[in-house]
């Protein structure tokens, strides 16, 4: 100690910097080569034969439905592209560089099954898919003050999804639960639709139930009979709404203590008249016992109510493909126009206890889902769709980290992600409840990606936080650095022209100059069509 104390100050500082720098560099090198979790290819379970068989039937039904199919075999996307689709759909972000390295150790042809088995155990699955379902049944707004707790509602959904609670049970809880929105979070479905001084809004709840769970836009007949398709009457809507007339806000929260008659002034009538609760079709499925909401929940989720299972399948399909099988997603339309593939999956969904994870596995198993977005028959091609704002934000964060950002990550990157995603989505323009808006991106969105703060912070020279700098300094050679950057951002290796171009850019660069060149490479990758679109 005396010897250290005897050193000049500048010398002591130099030793300190050298020691810290050495430790950081060592840490980085270790992380760069961080050991991946052990993987025994022989122990990988095979996909369920029953699920594979159904996926084949779905593919056959999809192919048969395509008029003018030329019989040419459908071109398949490579496995990493499929992993990217799954990761975006179920985690809301691209796969991490760490996950890609691990997936490369799995034998070819088995990677998608391997990934799916892991996915459902991952907290990211529950959290992200929960957010998407909450949008469907409650929108994106903060909603009524105090009585609607959106965060609590999302957490509840996440828990149900991770437990793989049967979807029909889950929806019954949403429609019929009683209690406080904090301790019984399912009640937030109803309390989201509370209007100031008015209690739960029966009409808005009926609109939500019919759109979210039945794929019927019954609120189109709120003010008059349907004069386009002629299927529904104004009375159908209000009779459905009347099922919510008992829902009441009391001291103990939501209850069925009743608020009197549900009164409506029907078109052509001179005054308001009470409306009795009744279902628009399938009256035989309506339970005779229980509160009005319990009976409605039983009817909506009845195994024979095909609108319920078809809508669930169409929504899960939309989650995975970025576009629903039937557009718009909340309007299935007349039965005769529905594709047989939808019914195949819907029947299987009911027969297997409304198992959402099984449904996801079956869709992911189909060749239709695994088809290339760039070639093959246009009817079967995987659609190219715009990523949602939170998918872009989370993917930027993930691309700039070599390790996976998940529930086990350090709290700092997770907090950073949460704040960034919110700010980015606000500036990028959140699509709100309109889930599958076909619009293209906008100029301010491009400006935000080109010049915005978030990308700049994630690509700038930073050996601790940013992958661009770390890859540049730690990868063995220019070609390896280019490949790692492509894998981390686009989930694929570079093509030969890309490899040649960017290796040329990096050649001979060192230190700060190399970091800047890596930063520019990352900028180009993050601003590409390929990054901002699902394909």
């Amino acid at each position, binding site marked *: 100690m005396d010897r250290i104390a005897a050193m000049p100050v500048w010398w002591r500082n130099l030793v300190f910097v050298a020691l810290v720098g050495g430790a950081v560099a060592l840490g980085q090198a270790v992380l760069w080569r961080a050991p991946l979790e052990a993987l025994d290819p022989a122990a990988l379970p095979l996909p369920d034969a029953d699920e594979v068989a159904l996926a084949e039937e779905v593919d056959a039904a999809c192919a048969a439905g395509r008029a003018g199919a030329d019989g040419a075999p459908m071109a398949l996307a490579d496995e990493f592209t499929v992993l990217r689709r799954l990761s975006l759909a179920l985690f809301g972000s691209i796969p991490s560089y760490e996950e890609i390295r691990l997936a490369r150790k799995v034998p070819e042809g088995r990677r998608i099954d391997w990934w799916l088995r892991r996915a459902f155990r991952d907290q990211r699955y529950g959290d992200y898919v929960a957010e998407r379902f909450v949008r469907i049944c409650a929108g994106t707004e903060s909603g009524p003050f105090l009585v609607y707790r959106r965060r609590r509602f999302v957490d509840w959904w996440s828990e149900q999804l991770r437990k793989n609670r049967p979807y029909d049970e889950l929806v019954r809880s949403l429609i019929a639960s009683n209690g406080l929105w904090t301790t019984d979070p399912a009640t937030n479905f109803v309390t989201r639709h509370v209007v100031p001084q008015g209690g739960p809004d029966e009409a808005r709840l009926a609109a939500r139930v019919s759109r979210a769970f039945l794929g019927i836009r019954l609120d189109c007949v709120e003010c008059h009979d349907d004069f386009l398709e002629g299927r529904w009457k104004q009375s159908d809507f209000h009779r459905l709404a009347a099922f919510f007339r008992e829902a009441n806000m009391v001291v103990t929260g939501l209850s069925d203590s009743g608020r009197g008659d549900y009164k409506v002034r029907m078109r052509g009538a001179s005054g308001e008249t009470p409306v009795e609760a009744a279902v628009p079709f399938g009256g035989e499925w309506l339970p005779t016992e229980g509160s009005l909401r319990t009976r409605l929940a039983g009817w909506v989720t009845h195994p024979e109510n095909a609108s319920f299972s078809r809508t669930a399948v169409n929504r899960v399909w939309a989650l995975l493909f970025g576009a629903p099988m039937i557009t718009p997603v909340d*309007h299935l339309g007349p039965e005769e126009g529905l594709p047989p593939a939808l019914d195949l999956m819907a029947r299987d969904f009911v027969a297997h206890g409304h198992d959402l994870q099984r449904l996801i596995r079956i869709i992911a198993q189909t060749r239709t889902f695994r088809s290339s977005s760039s070639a093959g028959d246009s009817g079967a091609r995987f659609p190219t769709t715009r990523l949602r704002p939170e998918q872009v934000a989370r993917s930027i964060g993930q691309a700039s980290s070599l390790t996976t950002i998940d529930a086990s990550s350090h709290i700092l990157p997770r907090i950073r992600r949460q704040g960034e995603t919110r700010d980015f989505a606000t500036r990028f323009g959140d699509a709100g409840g309109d889930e599958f*808006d076909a619009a293209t991106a906008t100029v301010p969105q491009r400006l935000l990606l080109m010049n915005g703060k978030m990308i700049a912070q994630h690509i700038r020279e930073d050996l601790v936080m940013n992958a661009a700098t770390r890859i540049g300094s730690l990868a063995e050679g220019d070609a390896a650095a280019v490949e790692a950057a492509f894998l981390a951002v686009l989930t694929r290796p570079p093509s030969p022209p*890309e490899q040649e171009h960017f290796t040329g850019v990096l050649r001979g660069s060192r230190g700060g100059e190399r970091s800047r060149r890596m930063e520019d490479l990352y900028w180009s990758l993050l601003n590409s069509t390929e990054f901002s679109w699902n394909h």
Partner: protein
Amino acid sequence: MESLTHPRFRRRRILPWLTLFGDLLALRAESLREPARHLILLWLEGAPSQLETFDPHPGSPVAHGSTDIASAAPGVRIGSGLARTAEVLDEFTLIRSMVSREGDHERAVFNMKTGYRPDPTLTHPSIGAIFCHESPRSPVEIPSHISILPKRWAARGGFLGGGFDAFQLGDPRNPLPDMTARVNGDRQARRLEGLSVIEDAFARGREGLEARTLHRTHLERAARMMTSSQLRAFDVREEPGAIRAAYGDSPFGRGCLAARRLVEAGVPCIEVTLDGWDSHVNNHELQAARNAILDPALAALVRDLRERDLLDRTVVFCGGEFGRTPKLNALEGRDHWPHGFSVALAGGGFRKGFAYGETDPLGLATQPGHPVRVEDLHATLQTVLGLDPAREWMTPVGRPLALSGGRVIRELMDPR
């Protein structure tokens, strides 16, 4: 004159006829007048008190000490905190009888900005987005819908799509967000060259990709915007010191000045937000502090537009989501009051020096005289902007919907 005081000509009897006559005059004027081409929304988020701004009742039990002043509009008196605005009030129409059914900030902001009450199944577009969507014009290189100093709820395109969301920026004293490349020219060129290599690789075998995504098109438009000379419109530092001083040394004042410059550059809709009006506690103090910022900016904006012959084709709207209670609460604050509040309108085809509707000086009535619903305000604004409020569009949820469900109030329009 005696004949007019005859019971046969009492006000209540004659009013419908006068209204009809006024409507006919306004209709004729409307058909002759060029519609306004710009809309500036001075958005007072948090809800200003009508009693301390455009609808004072001095000496009445609801004033609680608030006073008023005469204005350039004969017979129209406004809150004494708006002395400069009073000097140009001959350009304004005041509506003192706004009514709404929304008393919660988020819902009421949605209602006031879109003309529709919140609907969980549909996100309606704001008035500026509707205006940009419905009246195609020669395109500007900079965004056509702009929100300066947005707070919690900036103007949105709603179901018209993100392309109609307002472009958001902060204090115009600062550089524009996202509009400047973060690296020098050489590096930017290297970045764009690299991007081009990646784009080429992805486009291979994907016919129609660009038509579908418009990615490169938008990239080029973004690059054009970054170098457009029209960007100077945002830069208020180019204005003479006297002008800048007139608007007030505040972000809101600079926002109003930028709005005027943007109108000159051809931008159709600019929203400028001034928040902090939610005075549940110490109402008088808070309202006075906000008025001190609003007053010079509003007066300077209207005067400036008039002097540049821009006021006839620009509508200036100034208002918030609702009003404040006539009675003071225990903390000397005023709470939310959607049953009779004020908005101020100037320019475009609105009447000059005119006040419409009246609230109860005792603060007891929950229905003002000549009530104007939020949807009526929107229908009237849309008409002044040359839009047809009855026109229906098909929404993404498959329901046809009118631009506005309100009634046009022609008495608010300039009959000349």
